[in-house]
């Protein structure tokens, strides 16, 4: 409650309470007789010092669990201007203050942190209008209240006199300035010493250097060897956006104690940081006028990354959660300062919001009329507020449970910064308020509502419509712990990694090792190449695979497995999907009545794998849209006035039955598949899955299938790499390894390509195009990635082998172009034998 009788000069009214208290007569607003007595009671009621000390000693390292302070915003009849002080919920966790013994030596006061420009302690800086140089042009920067951290709340501090100056130094590390000598303000209920905190933070800002800065934190003209945040401040001075984002991880490295305080008492510490930064800023740039004072926005604190882990311990602490925005409310204007005018004499008064409520002044001081004030809306001041619903991101959801949601409140500048569908990481203060109970009831609802006051957003996903996205930015960045990376690398050491990884794909499917290898390489994908400068555009890195074979050869099962394995997979069936279901369609949003582009499976699997089952059942018009996707990796849309190009950097894994649903031995490959050449050439690998019809094979198959029915799950787990390991390994390799073609490998490619051309020209064969050379390169790159190494000759050989194996070229009778099943009876892992057969075939040319 401020003084409504005073002039509307907001800054004056925001000054230190202590100075006003004495000079002001009981204001009309607080004309309830109780006020003065309450105040004196409060100032008398200094808490037991011993209690505070134990608090300090015991709770320095851990957030005091007893201090489960909860905003008692709407406590029915209590709510009023007075209970702010009486029950003083937020910090004053000792409501029994009234009966505590009085101790001398400590005097309490309130700093009004609603004005971060009220820099310094009341004793040292009280009355100074601007930081640094009072009265200088720097004073042109207005102050804005931070509603995100509820700085409007009055914070009570305890002034530790000089007599106790020795005591608090225990917890400080490197405070060298003379602040030690002066009186120290400790914020009530915490161990935060205002001056120390400020001092330490300005040291952090002016000294912290991080040579290994993350990419999205870097900005133009950064010098990694200079203090990072000073550069940021300089940027603020140039750009004029008065926000300083800082990484809590940096603070943690710099001063763990300060970090802990920030996490535990964000509401008190952040304003202190604000003070420090502003002081520093205006010292450095005294002549800059900003829209308002600089606000500090911490992000990336370690506490609570997962929404499910939120618990009552986190209330009123700084937390970071990630999730997906599912709903935005419209902008809510929240009254910050109400403007009243008297009916009778047109005397005016302003009242600031106090914990969600505005108290109408009852008595006009000018004309002594009761209840004569009316609110003047367009002269009141408002801040923006928005409610946002954040839902747990799908990958954090435990299996078989529905996602949790949490409500976010964004304030002023953070309003409308995110859209539904965005994946974000939010840093904010976790709050709990009791549900509004029926005031006429004795029993109260014992349930709290929770929300997060947003301090900082960090977007995880980049805009899908942006074409310029390159590999560094796209998709999620997989964060793996160093131990995990070590483990993944150790996998490489154990021999025969290739086979093991391949076998880990769909272990319930028997053998088919080459297909699994092909799919494995598809998951690793090649290197993205950009020849845009030389006018050739981009070369895709994603591979497309077609599985073609008899029914009942577990093709769908493979597809299902891949769909389950990759983070961004889509599964559609050629039968049930239409062209729009694959690409995009335009609908009218029922709420906003605007046209909305709904993306289909191909766009949704951007950076993932799109599995298309029953590819042969797909109608031709639907299939034709795949042409662009499979080579250019984009999708052009011109519908309902929306003309755009969407990224569809997706790998396609398709499964098809032969034309006659059964493979016809008497027909050539082309006749059996019957897909247009243009489409076929876009597949990097085309696997023919044919029934080998061999007794040895059958026996092993039978054994494998029977074992599915009696082995326990644990038995099989040991045999194969589990899904999580496989997924992490692929993610790691994709992110970190970018193989390049060596000179020697280049030569081999040429030779292999020439050979492919030769084979492809045979009757009924799938002819080789330059596209196939590209696929060969991609396969080799993927293989190198899989080995976590740069490219070598062996990769090229494996690429060629797979390519050949896929089409069963080994078993093709070159004169007729038909597949001779009898040659196909090669067991698994008998590659060398295969090679013999192949060379035999080759000899016939």
């Amino acid at each position, binding site marked *: 409650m401020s003084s409504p009788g005073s002039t509307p000069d907001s800054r004056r009214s925001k000054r230190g309470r202590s100075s006003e208290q004495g000079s002001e007569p009981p204001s009309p607003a607080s004309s309830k007789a109780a006020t003065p007595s309450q105040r004196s009671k409060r100032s008398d009621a200094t808490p037991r010092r011993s209690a505070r000390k134990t608090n300090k000693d015991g709770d320095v390292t851990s957030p005091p669990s007893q201090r489960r302070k909860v905003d008692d915003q709407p406590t029915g009849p209590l709510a009023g201007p007075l209970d702010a002080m009486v029950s003083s919920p937020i910090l004053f966790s000792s409501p029994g203050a009234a009966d505590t013994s009085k101790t001398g030596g400590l005097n309490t006061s309130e700093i009004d942190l609603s004005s971060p420009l009220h820099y310094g302690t009341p004793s040292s800086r009280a009355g100074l209008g601007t930081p640094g140089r009072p009265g200088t042009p720097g004073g042109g920067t207005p102050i804005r209240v931070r509603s995100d951290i509820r700085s409007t709340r009055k914070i009570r501090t305890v002034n530790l006199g000089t007599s106790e100056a020795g005591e608090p130094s225990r917890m400080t590390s490197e405070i060298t300035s003379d602040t030690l000598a002066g009186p120290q303000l400790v914020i009530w209920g915490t161990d935060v010493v205002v001056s120390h905190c400020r001092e330490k933070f300005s040291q952090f800002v002016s000294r912290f250097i991080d040579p290994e800065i993350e990419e999205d934190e870097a900005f133009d003209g950064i010098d990694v060897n200079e203090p990072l945040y000073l550069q940021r401040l300089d940027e603020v001075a140039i750009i004029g956006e008065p926000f300083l984002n800082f990484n809590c991880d940096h603070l943690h490295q710099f001063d763990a104690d300060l970090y802990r305080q920030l996490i535990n008492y964000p509401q008190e510490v952040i304003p202190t940081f604000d003070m420090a930064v502003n002081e520093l800023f205006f010292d450095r740039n005294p002549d800059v006028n900003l829209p308002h004072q600089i606000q500090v926005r911490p992000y990336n604190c370690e506490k609570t990354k997962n929404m499910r882990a939120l618990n009552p311990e986190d209330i009123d602490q700084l937390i970071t959660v990630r999730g997906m925005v599912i709903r935005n409310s419209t902008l809510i204007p929240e009254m910050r300062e109400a403007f009243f005018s008297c009916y009778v004499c047109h005397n005016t008064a302003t009242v600031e919001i106090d914990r969600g409520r505005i108290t109408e002044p009852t008595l006009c001081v000018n004309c002594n009329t009761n209840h004569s004030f009316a609110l003047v809306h367009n002269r009141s001041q408002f801040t923006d507020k928005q409610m946002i619903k954040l839902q747990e991101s799908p990958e954090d959801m435990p299996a078989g449970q529905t996602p949790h949601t949490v409500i976010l409140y964004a304030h002023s500048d953070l309003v409308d910064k995110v859209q539904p569908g965005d994946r974000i990481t939010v840093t904010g203060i976790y709050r709990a308020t009791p549900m509004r109970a029926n005031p006429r009831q004795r029993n109260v*609802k014992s349930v*709290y509502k929770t929300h997060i006051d947003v301090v900082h957003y960090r977007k995880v996903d980049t805009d899908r419509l942006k074409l310029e996205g390159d590999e560094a930015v796209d998709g999620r960045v997989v964060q793996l712990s160093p131990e995990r990376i070590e483990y993944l690398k150790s996998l490489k050491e154990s021999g025969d990694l290739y086979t093991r990884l391949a076998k880990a794909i769909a272990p319930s499917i028997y053998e088919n090792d080459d297909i699994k290898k092909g799919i494995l390489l598809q998951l690793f994908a090649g290197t993205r190449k950009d020849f845009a400068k030389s006018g050739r555009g981009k070369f895709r890195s994603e591979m497309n695979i077609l599985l073609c074979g008899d029914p009942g050869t577990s093709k769908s099962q493979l597809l299902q*497995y891949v769909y389950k394995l990759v983070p961004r997979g889509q599964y559609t069936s050629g039968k049930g999907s239409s062209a729009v279901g694959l690409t995009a369609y335009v609908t009218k949003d029922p709420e906003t009545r605007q046209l909305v582009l709904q993306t289909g499976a191909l766009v949704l699997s951007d950076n993932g794998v799109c599995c298309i089952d029953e590819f042969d059942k797909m109608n031709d018009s639907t299939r034709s849209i795949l042409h662009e996707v499979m080579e250019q990796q984009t999708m052009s849309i011109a519908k309902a006035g929306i003309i755009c190009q969407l990224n569809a950097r997706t790998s396609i894994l398709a499964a098809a039955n032969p034309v006659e649903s059964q493979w016809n031995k008497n027909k050539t490959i082309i006749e059996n598949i019957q897909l247009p050449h243009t489409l076929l050439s876009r597949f990097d690998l085309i696997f023919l899955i044919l029934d080998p019809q061999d007794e040895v094979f059958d026996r092993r198959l039978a054994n494998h299938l029977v074992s599915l029915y009696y082995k326990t799950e644990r038995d099989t787990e040991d045999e194969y790499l589990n899904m999580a390991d496989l997924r992490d390994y692929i993610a790691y390799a994709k992110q970190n390894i970018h193989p390049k073609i060596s000179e020697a490998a280049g030569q081999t490619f040429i030779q292999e390509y020439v050979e492919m051309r030769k084979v492809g020209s045979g009757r009924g064969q799938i002819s080789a195009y330059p596209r196939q050379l590209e696929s060969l390169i991609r396969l080799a790159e993927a293989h190198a990635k899989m080995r976590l190494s740069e490219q070598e000759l062996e990769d090229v050989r494996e690429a060629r082998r797979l390519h050949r194996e896929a089409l069963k070229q080994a078993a093709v009778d070159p004169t007729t172009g038909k597949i001779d099943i009898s040659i196909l009876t090669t067991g698994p892992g008998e590659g060398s034998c295969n090679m013999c057969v192949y060379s035999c075939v080759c000899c016939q040319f």
Partner: protein
Amino acid sequence: MPGVDNWLNDPLNVIQNIFDNSGYDHPEKVTEYFKEKLSSQISLSWIPSLNSTALHNLNPNSLVKLRCMVQDMYDPEFYMGVYETVDKTNGTVHLKSGRYQDVADCSPNCEVDFNGKQNKTMDRQTLYCVPIPGENTWVKMAHEENNQAKVIASGSTSAGRSKRHRDEDMMTEISTSNVNAMQSGVHVGTHNEDDISPRDETGDNNTETKRQRPDSETSTSCSSHIPNLNFPLSGETGPACIVKIYENLENKVMVNDVFEFIGVLSVDPSMAQFKATDSDGNTLLDPFSPGMEEENAHCPPPSLVPRLHVILANKLQHNNPLLPTALNSYEGTLVQERILTEVNTTRRNLVAILEQALFGDTLAAEYMICHLISFVYCRRDVVALGKFSLNLMGCPTKSEFPQLLNKLLQHTVTQSHFLPMTVNNLNTIQFAPKKDYTANRLLSGILQLSCGTHLVVDETVMEAGELNANGVKNLTALGIVVRWQKVEYDFNFHKQEFPCDIPVLILSEGKSLLQCDCMVPLIPCQSDASLAEKYSGIDQYLTPALLTKIRAYLDAVRLMEYTLPDSVQRVIEEDFVEMRRQDPAHMTIDDFHVLLILARLLSLSHGHKELKRDFWDKVKIMESERKIRLPQHSATLNI
């Protein structure tokens, strides 16, 4: 039984006593206490069941039990786990436990201290539970009988009155035209609440009544305002309930799990969200409330959706009232053995009945039994092992056969649902659940079924027509259920897979639209009796005693352990190789899977835990017989 009354009718007091005695919050002691009290079957049956007792006949804050399926999970809730109350007269402070209640309770002249030093905030999970979808009437009745014989009469209201009230409650849900009767029903309901909650000030209850009335009026006038209780299958009745679970249960509960919860019933009217009013009665518009729809969904009036604070929870393996809940307990094995002694006669009877029902086709009857006892016993990466969806081909169109068969199934299995697959149904019904972000809840669909719910799909009613987008989506969803036993729930921004276990029986004239594990063409035996006559014959044959046996038999053999001895394994492998050599085209991997699963089911249906050689041979004969029937279809079948 004074002791019983105490923990049964006033469990909160008992909990408070335990709290006082142990000094502070010790939830495990509470659980222990109640576990001990409820260790016997008899004491369990003393607890009134929310499923069969009308809400107004139950005392608020008494111990009740509830059989239900978890439909949705709401966000966790923070509450005062421990709080202080201050006596206004002398200022003494009492410590109270806030567990197992929604409202911080205190004695007269006391006040809850929100800022008490010893207050402790805790969190609990909130679940939205619905009665088990598709639960057949006999199951409901049997559960009721198990219970009602010993139930303690709780309310003073007569049975007749309760009956009427409940019917009318149902009417509010399905919104029939009779507004007057319904309103009086609502009134009766609130009046009863007055009777049983004397501690509440009457003034509050009056406002409650007033508040409810406009609600119910709108529900009739405008269909969108019907409190949608979110049952997966429309037309179901029973109590929906918001269940609150505590630490010991968290993360053990999954969506679609079936539970029997035992806990404290909470129907405090203040739980309903209503527009907050300040002391002068003015409405305070809270701009930050999450929106009306969400509040309606999450805080429905407790007279409609009661709250239950769970003390003990049993995850149910089956929902068969004829079997003990825990089958692997001593009691369970005894019952199982008793059933196994008569397994052959029961089975013979069942085959005879099914044979009659399926136009005298013995082979189809055998397959039918296997289908009835199938369930997913294990998942290997994406494959669900143990499922055995059956497609009965050659069903007569435009006959009553599907309905009659379904009726028979309803009498034998615990949960089932009949889905006539008309174009209209496909286009309009919601199959897969979908998240409604306005109300922040999961809108249920008919595929949100608990494990072991039989789905009977009648394809004979399908006529030419055009499927819209929704129809195509539904058909795909159903296809995925049949093929992979999973349902993709639509979360708007992404889809999430949930595994399911729904045995599907498809009745079709020709080949079904959906790819089933096993297709059996029906070959009717020459018989003069009409369909209706046959089924009335079955009805006469099915004596209550036989029905009971069949019901127990189906669930008992289904849940038996099964092993494949090494010797038989070798035989099977040999056979596979042999069959492949003879006719590779007719012994694919899928065929072999069918053989293996059929062997398992046939063996179990005879009560054998181990696969024997002769059953394997029998399975082979069955399959070859079935395949002989297929050739006329085989051109299109791709077997």
